């Protein structure tokens, strides 16, 4: 199948600031990709370029086989900007009706769409009276209009409560199952971990890592941490048996090892028998992997 979104060697400068540098990316239908990166890494800039809102300096972008911002591309792409805003004088329903008409859809679907994002009760109230999360939901509702082939969502879950976040990702699962590609950015790593197929890490405008979470975990080769609680009176014996371990003020011994060393080390520790009261193995978290890739360039 042809890819929904194809970016090659994309470069974008804002005066002296290089917001994006030679970024390449391919998104197949049905794929959910998460774009991670620190503030100012270039996530929003990349999304605006995909939407054709701002021009770029070098490289190529193809959206559903068309140029970004062309009528063909716009008909197939839905966008949720970061800090989405609407006219405060319109009601949620009026706003969604307008967006439906702009996409050539029947405006009568508006109540249904609003119900899908949990705004059925508030739909006749002016958006000016909505809470931040409710405005965000109006923004989500408008991305569901028609059958977009590509959804570009800039921090879609910001302002949503935990339950709404889960509902939102369920909505996305449904869309992806129908063949839509999804590109979303987020600062909440835990939700991204479970709910996306691919992770892209931008740092200083460059795509420093790309792949599934297990891929990235293997590539980062981060050390595994172990904590050991010595049995009563066994502190000294354990400290000599495991000289590389550091003893904390809480009496726990901490040590790290590479993935390869993990099993032999565990064997050694279990061989110590009754001297060990408890053992925890802590694999690198997504946060660790993320900082590994995004800090590599001296950030």
């Amino acid at each position, binding site marked *: 199948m042809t890819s929904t979104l194809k970016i090659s060697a994309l470069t974008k400068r804002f005066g002296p600031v290089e917001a994006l540098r030679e970024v390449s990316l391919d998104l197949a239908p049905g794929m959910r990709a998460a774009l991670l990166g620190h503030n100012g890494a270039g996530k929003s800039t990349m999304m605006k370029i995909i939407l054709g809102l*701002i021009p770029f300096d070098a490289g190529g972008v193809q959206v559903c086989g068309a140029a970004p911002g062309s009528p063909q591309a*716009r008909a197939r792409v839905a966008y949720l900007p970061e800090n989405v*805003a609407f*006219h405060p*004088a*319109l009601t949620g329903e*009026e706003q969604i009706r307008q967006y439906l008409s*702009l*996409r*050539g859809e029947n405006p009568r679907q508006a109540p249904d769409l609003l119900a899908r994002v949990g705004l059925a009760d508030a739909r006749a109230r002016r958006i000016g009276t909505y809470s931040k999360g409710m405005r965000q939901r109006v923004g989500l509702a408008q991305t569901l209009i028609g059958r977009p082939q590509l959804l570009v969502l800039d921090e879609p879950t910001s302002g949503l409560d935990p339950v709404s976040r889960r509902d939102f990702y369920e909505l996305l699962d449904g869309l992806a199952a129908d063949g839509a590609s999804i590109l979303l950015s987020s600062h909440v790593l835990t939700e991204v971990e479970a709910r996306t197929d691919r992770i892209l890490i931008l740092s200083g405008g460059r795509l420093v890592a790309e792949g599934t979470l297990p891929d990235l975990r293997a590539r980062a080769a981060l050390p595994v941490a172990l904590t050991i609680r010595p049995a009563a009176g066994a502190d000294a014996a354990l400290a000599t048996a495991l000289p590389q371990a550091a003893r904390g003020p809480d009496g726990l011994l901490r040590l790290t090892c590479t993935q390869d060393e993990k099993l032999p080390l565990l064997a050694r520790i279990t061989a110590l028998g009754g001297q060990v009261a408890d053992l925890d193995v802590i694999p690198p978290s997504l946060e660790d992997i993320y900082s590994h890739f995004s800090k590599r360039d001296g950030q």
Partner: protein
Amino acid sequence: MSRILAIAGAEFRIALRNRWVAIATLMMVLFALVLAAAGAAPTGDIGADRLSVTVASLTSLSVYLVPLLALLMSFDALAGEVERGTLPLLLTYPISRLQILLGKLIAHLAILALACGLGYGAAAGLALWSDPGALAGLASLWRLVWSSVVLGATFLGAGYALSALSRRPSGAAGLAIGLWLGVVVLYDLALLALIVSDGGGALTTRALPVALLANPADAFRLFNLAAAEAVAAAGGINSAAGAIPLWQSAASILLWPLAGILLAWAAFRKVTP
């Protein structure tokens, strides 16, 4: 077309909620009624029916009021979207920038038409009530209504252009007031000074007609007064320009809105959200 109407519908609703419709209508009705009442006093025989006289004074009013209303409604149209942050999302929808502009134009023109229709209608009602022979002036009233809407379109276009150029509502408001002062007030003062200093010389006879046609507000005044053959009732610059043929002022007032929209379109195309 349904997309343009979707923009127009929302824009009209917003104007209704922001009380713009009420303010514009109230302003027109109030001023028109004051004028009609002031003009109702017997002014001697000027050979015209009461409605034509009312139309002549409404014309002088509209030259100031219609551009002002149009600019007040339009200066926020694009700069407001930029400031609220609603523009980027709108621009990702399958609708062209020209269509967005036309949608807003339709809504604002509808409001202007409503305000002018009700305002002039009230004044005309007064005139007809006091002078049954005033029916003869209905044609000039109708001309005033549509030419006011056309004049409004010119200044709406200009307002959108300023709105797109400044990108901030406060800046756009300043530019709009400046444009109004320049085109509607200072321009005529400058022309008057020219006539006085030239003393009816060659400059006045050759440059003045061109200068009047080049200004949409002056062309509007010429068109309505010449058409109503009530130039005598107005006086001022207009008597000096009585020689300008009707088709020329008509062409000017019809071409200016096109220029205004093209200008707005050109400015809007340069806006990067």
